[in-house]
């Protein structure tokens, strides 16, 4: 499966890129994070504390155990601070 992964705010800064295309066998967000953490130090650091991270699947907020089937766009970001 090929996913478009987006990073925002300090996640974007730590990983060093705003988006990337990833080919993966992960079936849940959690699996995907485990894969990304294993890549290198930047990812391991960025995804160190999951309580500081939110995820959206195809632009809808989701949980870490959400299924990736049919998903095209995954976004990781810190808790939002709008308004």
């Amino acid at each position, binding site marked *: 499966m090929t996913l478009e992964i987006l990073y925002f705010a*300090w996640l974007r800064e730590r990983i060093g890129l705003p988006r990337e295309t990833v080919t993966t066998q992960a079936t849940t967000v959690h699996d995907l994070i485990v894969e990304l953490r294993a890549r290198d130090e930047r990812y391991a650091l960025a995804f160190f504390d999951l309580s500081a991270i939110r995820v959206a699947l195809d*632009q809808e907020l989701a949980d870490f155990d959400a299924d990736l089937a049919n998903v095209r766009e995954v976004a990781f970001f810190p808790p*939002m*601070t*709008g308004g």
Partner: protein
Amino acid sequence: MEIRVQEAPFDFGAECARFAQGREGIGAVVTFCGIVRNDGGQMQAMEIEHYPGMTERALRQIAEDASRRWALADLLILHRYGRMRPGEKIMMVATASTHRADAFAAADFLMDYLKSRAPFWKKEISADSAAWVAAKDADEAALERWG
């Protein structure tokens, strides 16, 4: 219902005037405007990042939720992204209703949800540092008011 996400500054007074214009049927308009604070003079600028596509979608969901909960004649959400200086307007909401209680509650609700459920992230830039604004527990707790 109108939702705008833009980098350009907006004219709060002109938006208020336009929103309240020609409303013979309704009795109450509430507006809220968020302004960049200087926090004691330390801050030089605020930078707001957002998630194009999801932002509009999230704002629309929040607006539709408010419209279901209260009897609103109209509502406006306008939110900027990019770099702003202290004193600049960041965003505004406006609600129009027959009764003031609905207009107040809906505006208050919109602000609570915009704070924690719309994909914006603020960075404060001072002379010698830049820091992402941390989400406040109080902002997350505020959502519980709405059941």
